[in-house]
């Protein structure tokens, strides 16, 4: 289970502190797939970083008693001067996994071939995205955090990613943040809407979408 209770996040800015998240409560149980809808700047990425533990809340409680991934589909915290393989080994070392078992999968899935042994800075953005996704799949977690993964690759690769994530890992919990209602509808069983740093839970997917549409219309 993951539980957030009364979570606040404030960032200092040149014009005073800005409260990005207000009293956020959220509970995600094993195997559950929760979508979090929000427009740009609603605080989605901040929320997912707090859930992952990469960043700490200003106040409030965050409990995790299942293993939680890093926020997937960030461009990849790659060191440009290192090869794809070195970056892969680094992630394996951090999580205590033997890289030897994982190299064939990453080579095959990312379709990088000989480029796996070239510095990441020589990669195109598509190659980076493929490597990032492949590396995300080598460490197993009980809960995957997915930040706008929709941006990854062409249609065929997108299909491969969906299969790897949603079919092969269909039994895992997932928290997906997106501004795209259709994507959430396709993959989630429950959704909440983030507006101005406040998280509004909805009893059903349809109600969440209705609320999101209403908020989007209000803002337009």
């Amino acid at each position, binding site marked *: 289970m993951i539980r957030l209770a009364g979570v606040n996040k404030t*960032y200092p800015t040149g014009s005073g502190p800005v409260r990005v998240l207000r009293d956020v409560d959220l509970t995600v149980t094993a195997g559950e797939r929760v979508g979090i809808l929000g427009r740009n700047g609603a605080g989605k990425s901040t929320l997912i*970083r707090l859930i*992952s*533990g*990469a*960043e*700490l*809340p*200003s*106040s*409030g*409680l*965050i*409990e*995790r*008693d*299942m*293993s*939680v991934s*890093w*926020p997937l589909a*960030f461009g*990849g*915290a*790659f*060191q440009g*001067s*290192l090869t794809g393989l*070195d970056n892969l080994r*680094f*992630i394996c*070392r*951090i*999580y*205590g996994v033997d890289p030897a078992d994982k190299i064939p999968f990453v080579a095959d899935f990312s379709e990088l071939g000989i480029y796996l042994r070239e510095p990441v800075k020589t990669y195109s953005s598509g190659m980076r995205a493929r490597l990032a996704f492949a590396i995300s799949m080598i460490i197993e977690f009980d809960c995957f955090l997915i930040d706008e993964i929709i941006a990854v690759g062409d249609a065929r690769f997108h299909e491969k990613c969906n299969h790897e994530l949603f079919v092969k890992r269909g039994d895992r919990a997932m928290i997906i943040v997106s501004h795209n209602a259709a994507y959430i509808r396709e993959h989630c069983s429950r959704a909440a809407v983030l507006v101005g740093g406040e998280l509004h839970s909805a009893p059903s997917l349809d109600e969440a979408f209705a609320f999101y549409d209403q908020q989007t219309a209000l803002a337009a």
Partner: protein
Amino acid sequence: MALERHSAGVTLAQSWQVQRRVIWALILREILTRYGRHNIGFVWLFLEPMLFTLGVTALWTATKSIHGSNLPIVAFAITGYSSVLLWRNMPSRCVGAIAPNLGLLYHRNVRPLDIYASRLVLEAAGAGMSFVFLVLFFHFIGLLDLPEDLLQVAAGWLMLAWFGVGLALLLGALSEFYETVEKLWHPASYLLFPLSGAAFLVDALPSEAQRYVLMLPMVHGVEYLREGYFGSAMIAHYDIGYMAAWNTLLTLLGLAQTRRVSMTVVPE
């Protein structure tokens, strides 16, 4: 108050295991990014400080540097400059160290302290290897006697390394909040070098000057190290308790500021 709770029963031993794993991964990554796999690679780790020390040794020998004693210049330069490397390079490597590694902080187990720790371990290893290899090299060509008291030399070196660690943590963490730290550290380290005891023996100074120079903690470490090295050939002035107090204070302040960085840092 922000709370982080992992109810999965994480013991201290498990956390330490994770910490070690992360620091080791960061060390290997740092070696690869800094020195690459090509030509001599990680040998640069100790070759670079060796070249520095050799250069200074050559300069001081050529100018017959007046250091106020009849100790051999080679020995004097190696013991002095090896200690400067510790307290000067450690902070230099930690100031601004978070920014290039912001992306790594996406991984929960990578904390700012791990980034500092990996860099500090590398600096200490480089400076230590350089010191040992130079002593052995000059000993084999007959220009240098081995230390009289190996244990005291090691203890002095460790005190200097500890001072470097404390100073590096404090300045590194503060540099995340105040840009001026980086700007001021360069001139400060440059100006501290001639005062640090590396280039003179405290005993050779007038007693008024001794009083002031002994306010600098690293002077005590260098004097202690040199007494271990040369023993009876010199009169050393030091108070290891005074230096330990400084080291403790710097380390605690450094850890507190590093914690502050951890609380506020925003991954890329």
